[in-house]
């Protein structure tokens, strides 16, 4: 103990995975090394898993260990397709924003395996409470991209009637809860949804989503304590993409403990998973959803991944992010890893890959043209200004009717 004056610890904002200290914070494990407990395990028996990393694919893209073998080749090809389609969608929507056809866009580049690998573990009637970076949940279930595009363009076919910021989708039919914009609020709502399913004696499961940065919000902690008390059927996902706009995960508390470890303070079982490994994602998601469906309660999963793109189209990472952050990232790209794995299994080829990418680009391009045919934020038709007075309440009160008239409708 030093006798000098106190000093404030301010975390190093910049991770660099090339440096041993920073890489050790990732708590990497070898592929296939981490055990797969029975789904009815108690939290106390798997505390070590909060400081390990479940990985199936090794550096040579071969599958290993107890979490492998959960997917057929067909399922893997569908997963690859969903990830590629998500990427093609993101590229096209970013381009539309650059062309000023809409105001804003957010990509999930580098994180596609998480939502695309998670969604197949769910079934109809389940509900995701997503953030703005889980478009893969919709795309993996073949939700029409044109519907998403119309929302991004705020045009006349936007089911949200031009009210919401681009990417703040809502798709009840796809088990996709309306996106808020205020971070973390959805996390505790997912717990409430899951509690309702249990209260009514039904079988549906909720999936809560949050970024590691937003775990600092009160609602994250409220969600964990409610989940701990009532043990509802909810999967508590934390997507640790290392960055929250300009601040590294250390500013969210990642320097002192893993995000998975937080669950243990509440007695909730936790897994920590390589989020860039489609096979690991699918296996861990299925494990947690099975626990939930069997009335065994909540599971927290920290998905370790890397935000490869800017935070949003309003962001310029060159101001805060060193180029090595990208190059030294040790867990690779989820699309490349699954592609190489499938090729290794004899179920895929470079040529088929190129062809699929071209097909998807074409599909997205056709949909994008069709969507623009219904208008964009700046051109063509959009929802009437009169509609902004709808849905504030179920029945429009007199003062809103009066204001709508004042606007000329």
């Amino acid at each position, binding site marked *: 103990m030093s006798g000098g004056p106190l*000093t*404030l610890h*301010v975390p190093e*904002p*910049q991770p660099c995975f090339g440096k041993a200290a920073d890489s050790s914070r990732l708590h990497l494990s070898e592929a296939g090394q981490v055990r797969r407990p029975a789904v009815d395990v108690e939290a106390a028996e798997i505390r070590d898993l909060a400081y390990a990393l479940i990985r199936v694919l090794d550096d040579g893209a071969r599958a290993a260990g107890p979490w492998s073998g959960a997917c057929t080749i067909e399922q893997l090809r569908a997963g690859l397709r969903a990830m590629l389609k998500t990427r093609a969608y993101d590229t096209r929507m970013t381009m539309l924003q650059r062309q000023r056809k809409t*105001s*804003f866009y957010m990509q999930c580049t580098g994180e596609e395996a998480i939502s695309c690998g998670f969604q197949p573990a769910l079934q109809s009637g389940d509900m995701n409470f997503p953030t703005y970076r889980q478009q893969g949940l919709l795309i993996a279930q073949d939700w029409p991209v044109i519907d998403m595009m119309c929302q991004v363009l*705020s*045009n006349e076919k*936007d089911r949200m*009637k*031009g*009210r*919401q*910021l*681009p990417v*703040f989708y809502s798709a009840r039919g796809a088990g996709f809860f309306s996106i*808020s*914009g*205020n*971070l*973390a609020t959805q996390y505790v709502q997912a717990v409430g949804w899951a509690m309702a399913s249990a209260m009514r004696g039904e079988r549906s499961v909720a999936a809560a989503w949050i970024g590691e*940065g*937003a775990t*600092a*919000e*009160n*609602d994250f902690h409220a969600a964990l304590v409610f989940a701990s008390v009532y043990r509802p059927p909810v999967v508590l996902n934390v997507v640790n993409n290392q960055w*929250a*706009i*300009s*601040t590294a995960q250390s*500013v*969210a*508390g990642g320097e002192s403990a893993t995000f998975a470890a937080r669950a243990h303070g509440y007695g909730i079982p936790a897994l920590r998973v390589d989020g860039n490994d489609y096979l690991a994602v699918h296996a861990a998601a299925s494990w947690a959803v099975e626990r939930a469906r069997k009335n065994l309660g909540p599971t927290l999963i920290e998905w370790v991944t890397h935000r490869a793109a800017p935070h949003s189209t*309003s962001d310029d990472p060159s*101001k*805060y992010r060193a180029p090595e952050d990208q190059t030294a990232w040790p867990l690779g790209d989820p699309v490349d890893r699954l592609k190489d794995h499938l090729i290794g299994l004899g179920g895929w080829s470079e040529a088929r890959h190129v062809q699929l990418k071209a097909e998807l680009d074409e599909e997205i391009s056709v949909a994008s043209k069709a969507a623009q045919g219904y208008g964009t*934020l700046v051109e063509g038709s*959009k*929802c009437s*200004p009169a*509609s*902004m*007075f709808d849905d*504030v309440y179920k029945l429009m009160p007199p*003062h*809103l009717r009066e*204001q709508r008239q004042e*606007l000329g409708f």
Partner: protein
Amino acid sequence: MPSLTMIEAIRDAMDVMMARDERVVTFGQDVGRFGGVFRCTDGLQRKYGSSRCFDTPISESGIVGVAVGMGAYGLRPVAEIQFADYMYPAYDQLVSEAARLRFRSAGEFSAPIVVRMPCGGGIFGAQTHSQSPEALFTHVAGLKTVIPSNPHDAKGLLIAAIEDDDPVMFLEPKRIYNGPFDGHHDRPIVPWSKHELSETPEGYYTVPIGKAVVRRQGSDVSILAYGTMVHVVEAACQSVGVDAEIIDLRSLVPLDVDTIVRSVTKTGRCLIVHEATRTSGFGAELSALIQERCFYHLEAPVVRVTGWDTPYPHAQEWDYFPSPDRVGRALTRLMGS
């Protein structure tokens, strides 16, 4: 005098105060290394070190809560909330704690904090990047609330806020960060360098909290506005050709009642303009006050032009934003009655 943008003026105020007073510290989401998503704290960490300007976790209640603790200790924290729309998780710390600490401890403890937040629309930010929550602060006993409309006032008011011994909510209309905006969204953007109120004295000066300013003398009607709406009102008066007296309130609590009463007593007419929703908005308070103090001088009912009582929409932004046209029509009606 150098011409500054609103962002530069706000940064300059913090710079001046951090240099003068070691107790002044600033923090918030993306505030430290990056310098804030709107760049208001750019360079302060490099200049004053990371224990006086730093990034925080994404927890608004945490940000305001630690500010209260630091303020009670004796520091002068300037906390940034990234968007006013994200203030709500901090609301309990503001309303139940910062606002009442002095009262409940009979002066033993206090919270001399400033909470800065960008507010208002006009940037296609939709419901979560456009709100004007000033009335949620003015309704709370113990909080002061200020909103500058130009770089000169922004710097002077922020310095006054940092020196103030009570908690001050400092609202920054983000649409005028980089240039004055009169509501004509289809016209070219005007930079602050073209506006005389971007001329900002170097170093230390204050604009007193609680003092409004008459932006334009006039005899037909008094217009009360603040923030972006001051510019919208100026444009509307020009196009309608009314000899209006335009009062930029700058400080909502405490309010410069004398300046308002003097003007309305003289003109006999009053228009109130704000971007926030109408019902229980700050305009309602102003209107009641004028009724109480100027009733026998009024020649027409007080009129309000405000945002509609709906969440802020994305695609219909310009149908929501109180336009110079809407203000102009209200003026014409008011002059005719």
